[in-house]
């Protein structure tokens, strides 16, 4: 793995540990101990990163936000990878009507802009608990994965060792699961890693426009939204969530690009 890839992996692991350990040692992210005198405090021993406009502890919000944002991203890529590879494998391996129909379904999914589907669903259901938001992000992310896995399946179905397996009389389902599916995993791993960055960005964006993770639940995106109203008097509120967000997306991008380079050297 390349040096940037190792940096990305280390950063992701560090952020994941922060998401797990941070909330254990942090104060409550929603408590408003002293809204009158305790707002906009600079960092101190009591509040490591200061307090926000409602006197809430920023470190606590950042830590719980990490937990929520990263959990949503993890759920999203897991759902997208599972649905996408199932549909992609089926579409790539079945011939005739079923294969063509599944190909149509994938194309239809690709024709629906992800952001529109997300906004339509969020408009219809309103407030949504964070884990469900993760599922929703996954259910809108699968067509891209399915297209990728279908392509890989079609490519691998041409491979000599797959021909050999067929010639030896292995049942088609067994060939699909034992010989073809493992071959799609490198591409799937790369797409999933890069998908983490996409999911984090989308969740942060949705929370930033107020329709993703909603107050009082903390999320990096909604923290930036709230900080935006106090740019003139407390610009430092922007710092922590922006840094966390950029670190997370950079880390996933670096790791994904590095994996791509080592697992799929012939592609860009």
């Amino acid at each position: 793995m390349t040096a940037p890839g190792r940096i990305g992996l280390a950063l992701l692991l560090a952020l994941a540990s922060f998401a797990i350990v941070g909330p254990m040692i942090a104060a409550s992210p929603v408590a408003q101990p002293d809204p009158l005198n305790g707002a906009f405090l600079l960092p101190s021993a009591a509040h490591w990163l200061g307090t926000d406009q409602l006197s809430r502890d920023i470190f606590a919000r950042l830590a719980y936000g990490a937990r929520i944002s990263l959990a949503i991203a993890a759920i999203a890529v897991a759902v997208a990878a599972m649905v996408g590879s199932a549909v992609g494998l089926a579409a790539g391996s079945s011939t005739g009507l079923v294969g063509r129909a599944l190909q149509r379904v994938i194309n239809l999914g690709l024709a629906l802009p992800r952001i529109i589907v997300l906004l339509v669903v969020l408009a219809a259901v309103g407030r949504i608990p964070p884990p469900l938001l993760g599922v929703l992000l996954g259910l809108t992310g699968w067509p891209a994965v399915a297209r990728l896995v279908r392509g890989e399946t079609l490519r691998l179905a041409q491979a000599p060792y797959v021909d050999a397996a067929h010639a030896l009389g292995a049942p088609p389902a067994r060939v699909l699961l034992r010989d073809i599916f493992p071959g799609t995993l490198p591409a799937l791993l790369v797409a999933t890693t890069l998908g983490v960055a996409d999911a984090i960005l989308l969740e942060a964006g949705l929370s930033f426009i107020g329709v993703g993770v909603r107050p009082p639940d903390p999320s990096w995106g909604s923290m930036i939204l709230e900080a935006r109203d106090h740019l003139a008097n407390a610009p430092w509120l922007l710092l922590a969530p922006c840094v966390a967000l950029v670190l997370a997306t950079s880390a996933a991008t670096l790791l994904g690009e590095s994996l791509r380079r080592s697992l799929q050297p012939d592609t860009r």
Partner: protein
Amino acid sequence: MNRWLRYRIADAIITAIAAVIALIVLVRLLPGDPLTAILGDRGADPATRAILEARWGTDRTLLQTLASFFGGVLHGDLGISLSEQRPVTTVLAERLGPTLLLGSLTLLIDFTIGLALGVWAALHPDTRRARLLGLFTLIGYAVPSFVVGTLLMWIFAVKLGWVDSGGLTDTLLASDAPASAVLVDRLKHLALPLAAMVIATIAVPLRQQRTAALETAAQPWVLAARARGVRPAAIAWRHCWRPALTPIVTLFGLWLPMLVAGAVFVEYVFNWPGMGSLLAHATFSRDFPLVIGAGLVLIAFVQLGSLLADVLYHVVDPTQRPS
């Protein structure tokens, strides 16, 4: 018009219709009654509710809904916005202009300066400035547009006060102000959203062009052209840039929808009165006739972009042309 193109256009239209149907079906399948959501805690007596249901069409079956929606589309009617109490088409028409302005300028800069920088980076692979550019593109990849926008707003609008921080125009600007003042005012409002959009997007065409140009520069035909004594500028243009155009054309098609909705988050940051901020507010106020109307426009642009990419693909790559 040849057969391939006719087939391709028909395919685009069918796909667009199927996508819109899928969107409407999705709304119907979802739990949660939009009407209740809109009426909120106030509720309504059954008689009023029945009137409202008839008005918003929530009492219809799925087929009736689809029929009336597409019937409306044929007459240029996308229903009434719940939050604005005006026809969806009117609201969309107002918002399309500013979005097209921001989106087309972004695309223009991305696909001129971005491509030029990409070729430059390919021609100077090992210099310090190229590495700096590489770092910059990585940041552009990873930093969300709204973070860029918010930071730009803080620096240039709040701290330095150079430009205005929101909206399309200064509402205090006199209506009879001279044209030059109007132009300056427009540019001051446009500068930050455009900068945020470009910074957040330019990395993609830049990197794609860089990779493609690096690949073509290593091709034997470039050496063959040099061996004929062709001028370096002609080699860069005809033998390096031109054959590397195919992936760029594909990217352009994929990005065309950005004209209408690439800017949801940036428009929201700067209160830019376009489709993006409209979508954000419509979603927040659960105005889904408006969201679906905007979705229809966006889906149309997605298909238009993919159609355009396919056509351009045949134009730029002679091996793909039907002979």
